[in-house]
């Protein structure tokens, strides 16, 4: 192995310092919350804190930030109120648990959290109750759960010429090039927290489906179009959205999104671009400059793609999205209207009608060209 130059060494140092600092901030914040509650108890007062309200009426669209955010309403959660006492304790436990995870640099899945609670006599009825408390913690701290080392189950992956450097315990300083394994690398805690060192790519292509991801790797889309390919596995998980945001901001790469030609595909692209109402309490998950390049409703006619009829729920989803302020104008509104007119949809695989490589050789280049003007 080639020895690292001094310059590189100092870079590594700087990077790990940055990661340490982030961790320190998290721990300090948790400690200050804990101290406040400790003091309340010690002074004979029922501890309490306020949580931004996540009710529908408090979720508003911020045009400047181009995402949904929480309004100014907040709810007081008090240990004096016997009906809140249980969830108060659950939240306290979660903060305590996140504190340990962060200090020990261990990661945990949502399901782990649910089971871990049982060791402390904190009963969650089911995982959805514990998931909900995790969102509470995010809302109180305005930090995504990944910062507390809590991750969802992974199903998305990445491939392309990108060098990263791990920061997780046992791998600190170790680097990796993400084009070494043709099945791609799954986007988990180690990848999300890794430092992005350098890349030769000029664009990130997020694609909805694993099948197409494999085809793109086979057809060397990464080399032909100097790109990093990411499989979102349907709706992109938050760790994947975090990574997309970092690729865009830290590596200055444009992001384009390729989905099935239906209303759900359109919305997958929208969530990458401007987040979901569910995560309105968080602000580090969006790539406002991401571009949806297809498959558009108009492509169905233009490329004469084989289609299948929309279901009742597809159509209902169209009408729901028409009420969303983000679908009020531009390509978003136009394509939604066409979907409603056609009442038909097409999958990415539909291009196979014209040969397996048709999508990479004909469709993709045209769309990449088009993206520049979007």
């Amino acid at each position: 192995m080639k020895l690292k130059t001094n310059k590189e060494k100092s870079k590594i140092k700087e990077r790990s310092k940055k990661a340490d600092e982030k961790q320190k901030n998290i721990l300090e914040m948790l400690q200050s919350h804990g101290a406040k509650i400790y003091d309340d108890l010690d002074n004979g007062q029922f501890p309490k804190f306020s949580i931004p309200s996540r009710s529908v009426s408090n979720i508003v669209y911020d045009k400047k930030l181009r995402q949904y955010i929480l309004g100014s309403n907040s709810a007081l959660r008090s240990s004096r109120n016997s009906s809140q006492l249980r969830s108060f304790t659950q939240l306290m436990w979660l903060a305590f648990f996140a504190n340990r995870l962060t200090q020990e640099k261990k990661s945990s899945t949502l399901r782990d959290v649910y089971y871990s609670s049982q060791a402390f006599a904190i009963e969650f009825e089911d995982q959805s109750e514990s998931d909900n408390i995790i969102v509470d913690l995010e809302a109180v701290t305005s930090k995504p759960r990944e910062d507390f080392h809590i991750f969802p189950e992974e199903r998305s992956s990445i491939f392309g010429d990108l060098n990263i450097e791990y920061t997780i315990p046992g791998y600190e300083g170790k680097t990796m090039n993400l084009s070494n394994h043709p099945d791609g690398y799954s986007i988990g805690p180690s990848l999300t927290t890794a430092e992005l060192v350098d890349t030769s790519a000029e664009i990130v292509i997020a694609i909805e489906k694993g099948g197409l991801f494999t085809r793109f790797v086979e057809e060397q889309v990464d080399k032909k179009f100097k790109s990093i390919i990411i499989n979102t596995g349907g709706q992109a998980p938050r760790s994947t959205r975090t990574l997309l945001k970092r690729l865009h901001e830290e590596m200055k790469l444009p992001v384009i999104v390729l989905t099935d030609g239906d209303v759900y595909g359109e919305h997958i692209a929208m969530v990458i671009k401007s987040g979901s109402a569910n995560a309105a309490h968080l602000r580090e998950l969006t790539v406002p400059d991401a571009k949806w390049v297809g498959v558009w409703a108009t492509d169905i006619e233009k490329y004469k793609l084989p289609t299948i009829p929309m279901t009742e729920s597809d159509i209902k989803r169209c009408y729901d999205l028409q009420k969303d302020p983000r679908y009020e104008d531009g390509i978003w509104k136009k394509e939604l209207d066409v979907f409603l007119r056609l009442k038909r949809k097409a999958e990415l695989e539909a291009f196979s009608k014209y040969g397996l490589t048709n999508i990479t050789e004909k469709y993709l280049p045209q769309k990449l060209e088009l993206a520049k003007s979007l």
Partner: protein
Amino acid sequence: MSLIKEKFNQISPSEFFYSNRDLAGFSNPTRSLYTAVREFVENALDACDQKGILPDVHLIIKAVDPEKSDPKPYILTVKDNGPGIDPEHIPLAFGTVLYGSKFGLKQARGMFGLGATMAILYGQITTNKAVTVKSSVDGKIQDEFELLLDIQKNKPVIIKHTTKEVSKKGLSVSICLEGDYSKAGNKIRDYVYETSLITPYASITFDDPKGEKFAHPRFVKDIPPPPTIIRPHPHGIDVERIRRMIVESQFEIPNIDDAMIEKVRKDLGLSVKNLGFTAIMEKAKKKWKTLSRQVRVVIALMSFLKMDFEKLNKIKIEDIDMPNKKLFYWDFGESQSKSIDMNPESPYFKQLTNTVQGEPLTTFLTKRFQRIGPTTALKFAEFAGFKPEKRMGTMSNQELVNLSDSLQKFEDFLAPDPSCLAPLGEEPLEKGIKKFFNPDFTAVVQRPASAYSGFPFIVEMGIAYGGDIKTGGPHVYRYANRIPLLYDEGSDVVLKVVNDTDWGRYKIKGDPPFIIVSHICSTRIPYKTAGKENVADRPEIERELRLGLQYLSRKLAAYMSKRGQADMAKKRANLYAKYIPLIATFATELAGRKKEPNYKKILEIENAEKSQTIAEENEVENK
């Protein structure tokens, strides 16, 4: 013509019941043993009730041969401390079917006292043993009879009759019958247990064949007021009943023999004095008000015959034809039949008419029914299309049917008089429930009297929750006229009403420990079957049950919500005790401190506040 002559035999009531014993609940050894127990225990309780005696009833069942397997002969003995039965009536009362003392219209457990005789009959059929009856009416002398029934003749056969000195009043009946205690035992024990709940003023003991003794001492010292016998209500009547009442209301023309003439002379104060016809009439007019009906009829006849006592002695009345106003008589002296015309204007004519043709309709109605006064009687006559003065004795069959129908349909009669009913009363019922179940909550209600088809009834109900009551409620205890109903509960109207209730609405959830007691009192319980086990769903009865149950359920709901609040307060206190220390532990580690915060203070605050709220609540309640 056929040579074979059809033979028509009259069968006796005993024979009829012998061949139809299923009807009375004697279908198999299990059911028969249970039914026999019921009949004797209920007779004993009825006898004591009628005389206002606090009942002591002893039930003993013994196997004749304990080693034998069921079904086998058992000796069943029921002793009471009631009034006993006069020795002269005993053979008929226990040795004849359809001889009873309960034919009057009032509430009693049994209707006619038939069941006991049926049990005796069943015992005799299955074991060929005599019934032993011991009775003392004065507490000094006891008569002991051994009796068999002559089934064909419906007559008692006295096998033995002895007397001896005793110190207690009461009746003891002992029969030998084929039974199956291993199967009937549960029901009999339940029956005794449930009977003592609805008869809290009775002491009941039961010695069972296995040597176990069950004692249910009385825990209420007062007997509920006894019912009175009353006249029937017009809505509860049929043609046959009217016919019988007419027969009762008509009087026969007295046989004018020497004894009768002597009686008339005596009543007129003429025993030793001989007066002429005119003088006798004068005397009779003066004394009219004091004369008996019979004597009046004789005077009336004399007035038309224009005879003195001497002449009267020599004739015999043959016929009185009221419509043609003719009187026929046989003259012994002249040996021929004679007739005279009667003057309808004579006041004596009416006297005879009453006797021969019965009472006028309005008199019949007002005198023989409850709830009918002269005004109502006139209104009814108009409604039914009868002349008010129509004589009952002159009604044709069709007219009787019309009368019966109209009595059912006429709506202006007042509701039946409930004084013939004997409900247990709220207080004894509540005491009984409390003693039997030791519940956390009890409520009872007695509904006002109501009526169905002319029969008055009263519904009493009780509800109880918690305590010794088993979960899986509601457990329903059904009673009718103080008899527990144990069989066939599925089709009973009480069960229907209970099952229709949405208990969730009354804050009763899960597997609740609660019981419902229902008691229907009526001069006639509308049983669905002859076995007296389930009550038919008459709308009037169903309505009263529903209202009663709703009232009780609301009371229970109020209790449950209070109980819920108390539980909640306790739960709350536990919540704080559980969670605050956990919060302290987590906060300590989060804050990076070593010592846990002093959280005891807020737990104390919480406790103090809680006791204050409870004190306030109690204060409100006391007010």
